[in-house]
């Protein structure tokens, strides 16, 4: 599933903004004379997800990647910008479903698995008779590698990986064409993670699904995606084809991320670790938000916000230095 440059977009986000009001309660604000406090969780980001492909959003905690997932699925209303879904199978906009991170929290412990999986069918009135619903549920459970008889059990009877399979079955119940997966394997052990990732790849090939994949794990992202967008403090700092991004990371933050992942194959035991941590999104630094941690920051970086520029290879980068290098090379 590589080389999707020509594929038409299944989903487009344009200048998406999400601001949360995290002010203290009204009375405290009045007494302490504090202003309202706003948190820019997602700050002017644009991206497209290719039809039948997989775009991954990576970044550290607090960078806004989960907020993007929730905006796309409509669990949050955007404060600005546009979300556009391409027409799906029957002309109506693409249908979306979501897989959540924690399979221990996303399944109702009091419901039998068959009812959990059937809920979207009943709720959206997709099938009429209970016979049809039972058949469909059994088929779904088998699709995700469980047996039809597992429908009678409760979630606590399953292991983490099996529960994640149940939540995938539930997400597939309404036959969506677009799945938003928010860290679907980060609560799982590696051997089980491999099972779930393999299943997701298989389903993508068989059902022609489009994925928006949210993760903090670069190796998982590399395995799953065609394109990767790297987020830092609410902005996309770099977006490009998976192979290109790994072979030739342009943004200093992408390079930092790639350097600091512990590598099992070639461990780097004497690494020199760059200092610094992600600043609070409540008080983001001026200019390029990465400049206090950036090893190659120049004067402009603390003053101007870098624009996202598209390079020749299709990679989009928001960095003054890269911009200047490109301008220099063109001269």
């Amino acid at each position: 599933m590589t080389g999707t440059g020509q594929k038409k977009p299944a989903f487009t986000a344009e200048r998406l903004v999400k601001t949360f009001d995290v002010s203290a309660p009204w009375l405290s604000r009045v007494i302490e004379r504090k202003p309202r406090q706003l948190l820019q969780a997602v700050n002017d980001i644009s991206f497209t997800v290719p039809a039948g492909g997989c775009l991954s959003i990576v970044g550290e905690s607090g960078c806004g990647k989960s907020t993007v997932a929730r905006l796309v699925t409509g669990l949050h209303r955007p404060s600005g910008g546009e979300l556009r879904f391409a027409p799906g199978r029957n002309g109506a906009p693409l249908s979306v479903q979501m897989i959540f991170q924690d399979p221990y929290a996303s399944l109702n412990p009091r419901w039998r698995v068959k009812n959990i999986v059937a809920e979207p069918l009943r709720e959206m009135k997709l099938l009429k008779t209970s016979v049809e619903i039972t058949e469909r549920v059994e088929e779904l459970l088998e699709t995700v590698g469980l047996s039809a008889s597992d429908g009678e059990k409760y979630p606590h009877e399953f292991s983490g990986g099996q529960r994640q399979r149940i939540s995938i079955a539930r997400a597939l119940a309404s036959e969506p064409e677009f799945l938003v997966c928010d860290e679907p394997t980060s609560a799982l052990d590696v051997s089980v993670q491999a099972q779930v990732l393999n299943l997701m790849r298989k389903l993508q090939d068989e059902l022609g699904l489009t994925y928006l994949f949210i993760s903090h794990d670069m190796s998982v992202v590399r395995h799953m995606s065609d394109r990767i967008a790297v987020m830092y403090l609410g902005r996309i700092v770099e977006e490009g084809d998976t192979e290109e991004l790994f072979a030739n990371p342009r943004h200093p933050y992408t390079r930092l991320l790639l350097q600091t992942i512990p590598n099992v194959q070639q461990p780097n035991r004497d690494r020199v670790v760059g200092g610094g941590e992600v600043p609070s999104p409540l008080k983001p630094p001026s200019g390029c938000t990465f400049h206090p941690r950036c090893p190659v920051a120049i004067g402009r970086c603390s003053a101007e916000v870098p624009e996202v520029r598209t390079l020749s290879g299709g990679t989009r980068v928001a960095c003054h230095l890269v911009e200047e290098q490109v301008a220099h090379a063109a001269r």
Partner: protein
Amino acid sequence: MGETMDQPILEVRNLTVEFPGRHGTVAALSDVSLDIRAGEILGVVGESGAGKSMTGLAIQGLLERPGHISGGEIWLEKRRIDTLDDYEMEKIRGRKIGAIFQDPLTSLNPLFTVGAQLGETIRQHLNMSKSQAKARAIELLGEVGIPSPDERVNHYPHQFSGGMRQRVVIALALAAAPKLVIADEPTTALDVSIQAQIISLLRRLCKEKRTAVMLVTHDMGVIAEAADRVAVMYAGRLIEVGPVNQVLHASSHPYTRGLMASIPALAARVERLNQIDGSMPRLDAIPDGCAFNPRCKSVGPRCIREQPELMPAGDGASACWLNAGGTA
């Protein structure tokens, strides 16, 4: 590991931990033996429920009732500690054994300044005056890489970021210069760039202070970068132990090999990840013979009948009948 090396700081011999329950007794740990030398990091890996944290808790005497040590011995600096009473153990924890837990926010008291918490630990174990303890606290914060420690010592935990908090927890664990530090998933709650900082800090402190470190984690990447030797656990047993390169890249146990193969590679992309089918058995339903046999690709008749013990394999040991010579 040659015989010429100095005596291990920690020796665990055939440790068995049991939890009696309504439906019979469950063995959370069976026959676990390991040792750690001064200045050495032993990585303990395994899936959740494999018993890696349990091993750390048992060594510290922190097992929750009704769990108890039902067999085996734990020796710390040639002193047997598993038979000590609570009062004696309390003197050992902090003084001889330092602990670093996963979540730095829950291991610090939000109501006291970092300095007060460090000072308390220092004065509890070392004979120091208040001002001496404060000076030592500042020194410790500096050692773990916290900028302007003389100011930060008066701050509360919430004024620190996640990575800085974990540094404070490490300072707290090292406050009384313990011989052994048990770090239970010290980087799991942190971001990758911060994780790298904490790993290199742990490595530096371990080598400088000649502390024995037991690093419990599920992350093979962390093990590859931090540990000197690795112990792999599965269903409450130690199934393989050896030098980090051997265990990770030339393992003689099918489980370790499968685990390594199931990690998505950073270098190249494969169409399909190698997966180990099934999941780890529950502790009350461990199959006969080798606990891994239902998931093992090279299973033989002997694996279903007999429990393999750790057998020498290369520079380490592995509990698999494939290493017993001949076939399984």
